[in-house]
């Protein structure tokens, strides 16, 4: 039972990271109907910048974290301004391939700039443990879950109760109508990319924490998080969170009981099964098509 609970908790912590990645996806998708295939690379960028600032420049963790998040947000904004802006109105396939191009470029750049050597994350929690009942839980896992839930709630409030949230939703629903009523689409998209970058950096720093280390390979989580967003349905924030936690638990459980190899694949199998039954995901809505 203890194994089960420990694995479950580790799964929730990993699910928190997935939820953050998935949140990054949904932020962009909910404003511009674009799936960002480079979300994983942005996450690795945030983690690498943060850890490099701590290790090489002896910066305090929180300051480095802030700069890392800002840098990732800036990278997202730059991509939106330099590339994606010119793709508005092009087919969905084109846009997706643009983000895939960004993923490939970022991946290679990170590899060349930071090297494949694992780096220490430099977070203040390290391997310290919290004892609850008979269980030993890592502090960093606790904080991962807290941060994920916090950010998701903040985003949900932002989306529901602010003018900008409304602007984002209307931009996604119908860009032309949104423009017509005076919503600055460029700024809305830009904001979404900055937010996605920040969320990605937070996810990256938590993912790189103990027992992991920071390498460009962290970007793989962007792909592993796909099952989470698909499971939840692309347009739903709630879905992203639920999907993230479900996939995290599935991953940790199958790793604990079946081994790493199967754990890599299990989330994808769950995803395919769900999609075959509900092609729009668990929380997505089905779009009607007109001829």
């Amino acid at each position: 039972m203890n194994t089960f609970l420990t694995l479950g908790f580790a799964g929730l912590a990993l699910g928190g990271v997935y939820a953050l990645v998935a949140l990054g996806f949904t932020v962009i998708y909910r404003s511009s109907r674009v799936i960002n295939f480079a979300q994983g690379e942005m996450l690795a960028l945030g983690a690498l910048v943060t850890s490099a600032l701590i290790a090489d420049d002896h910066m305090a963790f929180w300051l480095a974290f802030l700069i890392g998040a800002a840098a990732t947000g800036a990278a997202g904004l730059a991509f939106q301004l330099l590339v994606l802006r010119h793709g508005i109105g092009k087919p969905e396939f084109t846009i997706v391939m643009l983000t895939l191009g960004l993923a490939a470029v970022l991946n290679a750049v990170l590899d060349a700039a930071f090297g494949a050597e694992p780096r220490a994350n430099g977070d203040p929690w390290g391997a310290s443990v919290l004892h609850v009942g008979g269980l030993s839980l890592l502090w960093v896992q606790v904080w991962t879950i807290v941060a994920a839930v916090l950010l998701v709630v903040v985003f949900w409030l932002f989306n529901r109760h602010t003018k900008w949230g409304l602007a984002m939703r209307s931009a996604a629903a119908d860009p032309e109508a949104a423009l017509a009523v005076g919503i600055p689409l460029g700024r809305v998209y830009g904001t979404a990319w900055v937010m996605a970058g920040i969320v990605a950096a937070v996810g990256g720093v938590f993912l790189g924490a103990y027992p992991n280390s920071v390498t460009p390979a962290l970007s793989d989580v962007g792909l592993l998080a796909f099952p989470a967003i698909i499971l939840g349905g692309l347009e739903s924030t709630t879905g992203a969170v639920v999907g993230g936690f479900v996939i995290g638990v599935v991953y940790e459980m199958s790793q604990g009981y079946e081994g790493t190899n199967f754990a890599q694949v299990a989330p994808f199998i769950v995803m395919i099964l769900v999609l075959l039954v509900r092609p729009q995901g668990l929380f997505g809505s089905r779009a009607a098509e007109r001829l």
Partner: protein
Amino acid sequence: MRSPARILAGAVRARRPAVATAGAVLLGVLLPFWVNAFWLSTLVYVLIGALGALGLDVLTGRTGQVSLGHAAFLSIGTYTAAVIGENFALPAVVWIPAAGAVAGIVGAVAAPLAFRLRGLYLAIVTIALVYIVQDAFTVWTTVSGGPGGRSLPTPSFGPLHFAKGLQLGGLVITEDGLYYYLAFLLLGIGMWFVHNLSRSRPGRAMVSVRDRELAAAVLGVNVRRTKTMAFVISSVMAGVAGAMYGSFLGFGQPSQFDLLLSIQYVVMIIVGGMGTLWGPLLGAVFVVGLPNLLQQEGGAIPFLAGGTRTTGIPVADASTVVYGVLLVVFLLLEPRGLVGLGQRMGSLVRRRRAVSPVAGASQFTGEG
């Protein structure tokens, strides 16, 4: 009185596509005699890549089903060839078609995914395919040799053993040369097939599914059958390409067949020009040739680890950046790829000729 040159020019113009094809074939046949060993092996990889890309183009470029799972079918081809050619010791006449057949069967099994899922969802599920197949091969060590990989057979047809090369009188064709001609032949068959397919009823059904699936269904196109057919054709070509690739390389490792490989194939068809006959080949020249070009000539470019220099930016990273950027550039500026660029340049030249007929008349193929 028309000069013979003019009559010839007229005949050429009337059959421009046929002449262009004949020229390309002739160039292809003669090319191995002009290049050194390094570039010959690069050309073999280019042709094999083009065959795989041709398959992906049937699925994505012509039928509109975005797949990032091509690497999975390539790996199935590779390991089928390995098992049949090495474990069962059957000849290449068996293992090359078998690699296509097994991949095609798996493609038929995967096709129903495209019945339920559209666009992005399908793209993401095909990513899952890459992970699942890669994992299956990593675990299934009797077939794949595990993470360390395994060797693949070298083709031999009757008395012709690829490993020994071929001597025809004074003409010596090396092992790589034989691979080149085999890949050339297979690609030729593939392109001929795709060309005919595009003018047939199923081919037009594919295009209609791509352009407007619902409308196609309303008009009586059997969408499921069309998608299944596209998946099978695509996978068969990928399987054959995978078998050739593994055989030429000499070994296969599950880790080679990752998502990046799938992405490279997508880049090939986009950069080359989707839904065109020559696009996959042009794209393969570019995507497969570029890393080798950088490897060879990298010494001339600062900050790059290539040629004799060992420090600096790794060639693999540099070429990934280059084709990532080119992917973006082509998508935004010339969605029809290199083929579209060529057509655009061709029409530019023709227009200029039309403006100055004197200059045009002096050229061999053109006149006012």
